[in-house]
């Protein structure tokens, strides 16, 4: 009786163990499966993300390169139906706009960065400024365009290159300021102390010693901001407005490469579509070159040499 019961108990134990073994084997298989499934899904996601990038570049090169010729860089847009127009005025216009933007955005951004890193380290004010800069960075570019329209275009009674440049310049300030700050924070204290110990005035040591040491990084930040702003269209639609003719005057509407691409892309003419692709290719090459340069500078440890 007792023996039977024990036998039954042992049987139960055995089946229990069997069950457990079975379930643990199943469990192991299931865990193996999910592990590999996750890996496959992650790889798939990466491929899916890279695919549009590859597609965009192939399309740009394929459709853009065929319309790139000397005319593109030397002629102004031809009237509809005529062959052989170019985007020379848009390229020059973009250069003018970016010049104005840099003249406004880079000094102010660097100054704000110097304040954040050198004077306001750890203070409440600098935390708030830093936070506001991040928020300003997230303000949609179209809103910036509307604000500059109300601020400059309405009082000046007309679209102008100056207004476009200001809109782009404001957008550069947060990026330049934050990277400058980060780069200045990397400069070791001993360098500042050495300068101050030699009797160099504080402001002079910041400009000629600290800032100079961090210069490669600061230039990186400026170029990143520049590359970002170079492709902006939304803030230019109702500030710089665009122009079919040569113009470099700051108080007149001016053409810009992204703006011209936008207008041509929405036009019904094949010839203009080709120009839009060519313009995009030029714009992208410009941006990719500057971004790669930035990456080269930052990863090759130009900064490490300084510290």
């Amino acid at each position, binding site marked *: 009786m007792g023996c039977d019961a024990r036998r039954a108990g042992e049987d139960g134990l055995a089946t229990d163990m069997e069950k457990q073994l079975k379930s643990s084997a199943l469990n192991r298989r299931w865990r193996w499966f999910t592990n590999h499934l996750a890996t496959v899904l992650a790889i798939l996601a990466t491929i899916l993300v890279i695919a549009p990038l590859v597609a965009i570049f192939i*399309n740009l090169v394929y459709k853009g390169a065929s319309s790139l010729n000397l005319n593109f860089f030397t002629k102004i847009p031809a009237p509809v139906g005529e062959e052989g127009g170019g985007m020379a005025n848009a390229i020059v216009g973009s250069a003018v706009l970016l010049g104005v933007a840099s003249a406004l955005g880079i000094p102010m951004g660097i100054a704000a960065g110097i304040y954040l890193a050198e004077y306001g380290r750890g203070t409440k004010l600098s935390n708030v400024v830093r936070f506001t800069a991040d928020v300003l960075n997230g303000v949609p570019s179209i809103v910036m365009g509307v*604000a500059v329209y109300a601020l400059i275009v309405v009082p000046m009674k007309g679209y102008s290159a100056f207004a476009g440049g200001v809109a782009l310049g404001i957008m550069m300030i947060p990026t330049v300021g934050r990277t400058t700050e980060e780069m200045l924070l990397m400069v070791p204290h001993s360098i500042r102390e050495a300068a101050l110990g030699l009797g160099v005035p504080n402001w002079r040591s910041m400009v000629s010693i600290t800032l100079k040491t961090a210069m490669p990084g600061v230039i990186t930040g400026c170029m990143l901001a520049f590359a970002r702003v170079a492709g902006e269209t939304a803030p230019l639609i109702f500030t710089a407005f665009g122009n079919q003719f040569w113009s470099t005057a700051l108080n007149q509407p001016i053409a810009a490469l992204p703006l011209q691409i936008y207008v041509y892309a929405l036009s019904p003419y094949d010839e203009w579509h080709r120009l839009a692709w060519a313009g995009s290719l030029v714009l992208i090459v410009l941006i990719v070159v500057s971004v790669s340069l930035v990456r080269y500078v930052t990863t090759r440890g130009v900064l490490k040499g300084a510290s």
Partner: protein
Amino acid sequence: MAAVTTSAPSSPIRAFLQSRGSSSIADATFRWIMLLCALSIFGIVALIANELVMSSKLTLAKFGLKFFVGSAWDPVNENFGALPFIYGTLVSSLVSLVLAVPLAVGVAVFLTEMCPKALRGILSFLTELLAAIPSVVYGLWAIFVLVPLLRTYIDPVLIKLLGWTGLFTAPDFGIGMFAAGVILAIMILPIISSLTREVMSAVPYSQREAVLALGATRWEMIRMGVLRNARIGIVGSIILGLGRALGETMAVAMVIGSSPTISKSLLAPAATMASVIANEFAEASDDTYRSALIEIGLALFLVTIVVNMLARLLVWAVTRGAPARTA
């Protein structure tokens, strides 16, 4: 300073230093200029807000809060309601998040946890490049490549499979809310994935090692050790992506079809707050019309500021504490 110089006998060194003058004025001036530039960031945000409010006074007074619940957009009769654009902005952003978030997290997981080191640099550079492409180039590509692709291959399948939900119903022009959502997803992917990667790398290695030591597989380690610890930061990066999607203008304006209507089907043309400003501002001739568009800009400004603040706070909360925890 002056008192000291009169009492002390003058040595050549002291004379030299005195001849150079004090740098305290220059130092103070420099300091004030730097402070002014830092404060100008505040000034800019305040100025933008002020200009937007002043320029939209006309419709703010005329329509009040009704502006945001009215669905009529009739420039001819000067009757303005922003609801279709608010709806368009929300839905297109939502579509883009649904598409982008799983992919972005997948890429981040692959790059931080699985990828061989040699490949990591190249892949992260490529995703960064995706962020550097201008909006207008995305728009151009979307018009001539993505929209035909959607129209001929993907939309018919969606109509057949998901037509019963009412979200994907014919007529299908290719352009519309769904196309805008897809291009937005491609654009916000790099932001979400790079920030997610940052947050995931901030998770200390001891967490991963602890989970692995308990016999976890790699996926279990990622799920329990990394993703769970990084979840607040990931939410922050998603909200940051949302902030970008809400304000993205050119690419959306080029493919959404700009029609101020609310329709259930995602394949129908629509308009977002940003796209309506871009498409109609230059042709808005009278003051009320212009004021209505500027008021939409004001609403967009406020919404993106709130969304961005939220996201920054979340990301900060995670990454700021990180170095202390690893140490």
